[in-house]
């Protein structure tokens, strides 16, 4: 079940970018999965949700777009500002 490793790679890519934006938190990561990528979207979502559950990334939503080739790309990431009271809490 290589979707677990792929889910981890997506999360790592996201976290690297997030570090560049202090004061923001995870909102959404969009991935493109080609028909011939050898990755099942639903399995990937299952694994992704299992990885982020209970972590600081729990608010991160996974968006999946289907492609025609063998693409397996992180296409878009979104952050949202952390509310001041959350920062101080």
């Amino acid at each position, binding site marked *: *079940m*290589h979707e677990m*490793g*792929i889910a981890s*790679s*997506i999360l*790592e*890519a996201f976290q690297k*970018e997030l570090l560049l*934006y202090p004061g*923001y938190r995870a*909102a959404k990561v969009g*991935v493109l999965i080609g*028909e*011939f*990528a*050898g*990755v099942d979207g639903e399995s990937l979502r299952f694994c992704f949700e299992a990885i982020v559950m209970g972590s600081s990334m729990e608010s991160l939503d996974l968006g999946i777009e289907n492609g025609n080739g*063998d693409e*397996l*790309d*992180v*296409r*878009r*990431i*979104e*952050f*949202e*500002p952390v509310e001041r009271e959350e920062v101080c809490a």
Partner: protein
Amino acid sequence: MIAIDLKRKVLNENDRVASELRTGFRDTGTLTLNFIGSPGAGKTAFLERTLQMLPEGVRAAVLTGDIQTDNDAIRLARYGFPVRQIATAGACHLDARMVQKHLRKWNIGEIDLLFIENVGNLVCPTSYDLGEDAKVVVLSVAEGEDKPLKYPAIFRKAELMILNKTDLLPYVPFRPELARECARRIRPGIEIVETSSLTGCGFERWLIWLDARIHMKRAAPGRRAAGVRSAAC
């Protein structure tokens, strides 16, 4: 809200290591083939017969992947070539870092031909570049002819399909022409060689393909072309 368009490959770390491996193989002229097939397709027996029949002077080596045990490495080591087992301890595929780690104890400059036998699986290994020159998919006549349609990703990426265990054809309702048609529907240019690892049938053709690829890869001035031994069918 901040939104960033990235267009970054999910497996970019694997691809980075694979690229390093590919550069190393290019520098040393090592032809590297990544064998992918279902469990039981006959990958190990195919490699055993290949090692038995390799022309004199070809310096081959094998990395063989399995979830557990070193049984395949023990089998393959009987032919006098360097062999290392990669036990993935649960992972359903080999990745480039595993290959890199297991190659460290070898001098790649002394290897003309590296076979990588992936974990038995037609899906997951397809996603991972190992720095190979070509993927080779192994399909046996004990499987369905429509496997290429059911698992198109690997048949789309493989340059060569080995249709293996042809000695079983008298006993199974398998139509090779249909399997060929299905494979070419997915990849019109795929080369197909029919083999029996038990009898050696078809290996002459496979070894000619291999010989051509070794020489293409090395293209060393003055390098003597190695001949191909015949197999009696």
